[in-house]
């Protein structure tokens, strides 16, 4: 009996204690955070300074805004789904999130656990991945998922972007759970939109591809001339109908993906000489483009200064490009000289004329004075 009483007392005491402690936990946190990570991570000051791989000081923030997290793509996942290996508190040196991890969430299209694994594998094999790069010893330069996926991962304000969420009422005619429908609807709407403006795409790719030092290290042409092309200029004005980097180098319409970009020397690349014409003609952009338009010349000049030979021992593209750059430079030089000569000549003539007028005026004034004296 006595032991029974003791056990019941402990149970009651624990219950009361739990109920009491619960008073201090925000109601919302309780709803999703059954792992209790927010107990610490809800504090905005949580973070520290650390050194990154390049020994530079970086600010690492461990604060999680619950509202934003819930509205994010991953808002329905548990923290430990991605942040694997967190077993004890306080936890230190937890591994970086691997996007190829299997989620504890079923993909409704297959019924199996959802995962980004296939995309991660595609990326590995692409020119941007450790298996596809020319320089496997420079892996730390290669872009990781988060280097490109920097756009806001939140589905907040979609109603505003859509002007109205009225259409969701149609969905709710059949689908009972409003929260689920809302989420699904926002997901579909968000994915149906272009994720980045062309200006943002160019800025993103340029982060590495306009970095001469980095590109030289990887023996890749540094892109310097895109901003001077018609496409580049139209993009600065905000025109979304001209090609940005991805429209030619990874056109979804032709079955390519930004995750599977490969070198232009590979025969399956959309910008390989054999495929370029199809690339230009896609989406009705240059529907009547001819072979020479696609292949005789470069869509954007790149300064290729290194001697390089492809698998077949051919360097023709590079030589042609250098010759072409030289021709363009000569024409520009011709005009520079002509402009200096014409502007200089006209300017000289104009100044001389002003000098003459000045003299004429002086003579006229003197004549007038003389006239006054004599009269």
């Amino acid at each position, binding site marked *: 009996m006595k032991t029974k009483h003791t056990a019941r007392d402990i149970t009651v005491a624990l219950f009361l204690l739990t109920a009491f402690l619960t008073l201090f936990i925000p109601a919302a946190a309780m709803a999703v955070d059954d792992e209790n990570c927010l107990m610490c991570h809800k504090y905005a000051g949580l973070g520290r300074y650390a050194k990154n791989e390049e020994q530079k000081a970086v600010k690492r923030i461990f604060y999680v805004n619950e509202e934003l997290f819930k509205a994010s793509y991953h808002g329905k996942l548990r923290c430990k789904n991605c942040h694997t290996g967190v077993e004890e508190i306080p936890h230190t040196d937890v591994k970086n999130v691997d996007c190829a991890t299997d989620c504890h969430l079923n993909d409704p299209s297959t019924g199996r656990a959802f995962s980004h694994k296939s995309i991660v594998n595609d990326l590995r094999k692409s020119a941007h991945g450790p298996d596809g790069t020319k320089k496997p010893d420079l892996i730390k330069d290669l872009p990781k998922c988060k280097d490109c996926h920097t756009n806001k991962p939140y589905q907040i304000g979609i109603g505003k972007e859509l002007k109205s969420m009225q259409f969701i009422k149609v969905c709710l005619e059949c689908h009972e759970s409003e929260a689920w429908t809302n989420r699904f609807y926002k997901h579909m709407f968000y994915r149906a939109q272009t994720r980045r403006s062309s200006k943002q795409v160019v800025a993103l790719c340029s982060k590495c591809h306009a970095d001469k030092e980095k590109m030289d290290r990887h023996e890749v042409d540094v892109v310097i001339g895109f901003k001077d092309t018609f496409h580049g200029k139209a993009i*600065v*004005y905000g025109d979304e109908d001209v090609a940005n980097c991805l429209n030619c180098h990874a056109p979804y319409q032709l079955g390519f993906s930004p995750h599977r970009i490969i070198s232009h020397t590979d025969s399956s690349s959309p910008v390989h000489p054999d495929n370029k014409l199809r690339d230009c003609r896609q989406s009705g952009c240059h529907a009547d483009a001819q072979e020479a*338009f696609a292949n*005789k010349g470069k869509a954007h000049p790149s300064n290729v200064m290194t001697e390089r030979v492809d698998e077949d021992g051919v360097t023709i593209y590079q030589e042609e490009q250098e010759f*072409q750059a030289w*021709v*363009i430079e000569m024409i520009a030089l011709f005009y520079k000289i002509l*402009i200096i000569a014409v502007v200089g000549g006209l300017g000289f003539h104009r100044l001389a004329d002003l000098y*003459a007028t000045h003299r004429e005026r002086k003579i006229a004034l003197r004549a007038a004075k003389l006239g006054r004296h004599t009269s």
Partner: protein
Amino acid sequence: MSHSKNERSFVRLTKSQRIQHVILFVSTGLLILTGFMLMGERWVIEMFGSAGDTIFYWRGIVHRIAGVSVTLVCLYHLGYVVLQAEGRSWIKDMLPRMSDATFAVQNVSYMLGFREARPKMERFTYLEKVEYFSVYFGMFIVIVTGTMMWTEQYWPKFWLDIADTFHLGEATLAALAIIIGHIFSVHYNPHVYPMNKAFIDGKISESMMKEEHGLWYERELERLATEKAEATSEGNGDNA
């Protein structure tokens, strides 16, 4: 140098020439504006904000319309100088001659103070002839390269790069030549400031004609005198 209002004047530009000139300068102005919009610095373009896309669209349309109109007026002018008497007289007086070199040397030495007076010059001064034929040269280049870029799909990309470089170079040259050469000589020239109204009313005053186109002035006076004499003799004939 003031010119009295009721001074005798001569025809400098006929109506046809003035209309051709208006089409030429309005189109060229639009072409320069819409063309150099492509050369704008990023921060300037970004000031258009969300309207940039629309502005860019209309920039292209206006540039093409102005390009077509300038091409048409140039083709018309070619027909004009060949087929019409007025045009033939124009081109005849415009053709460069050896005397132009002499005038140039004499005029420059006068302006620099090495000569007592300006040389008496013809209907078109050497500078006007240079300007006029520069338009031929420039228009040929921008029309050919512009047409190439408009039909880009049929040309090798490298040729298009060449066309683009020529188009920009020629446009820059033309814009600067117009500003420094033409605008200065017809607007900021102290003789005519604020502007030489010939492009509106087609007239040139007797004093200015005497000063800047002395030989032409003498030629015109002679022609008027013979015309008058002929008219009188014809009149006499009628009377008889």
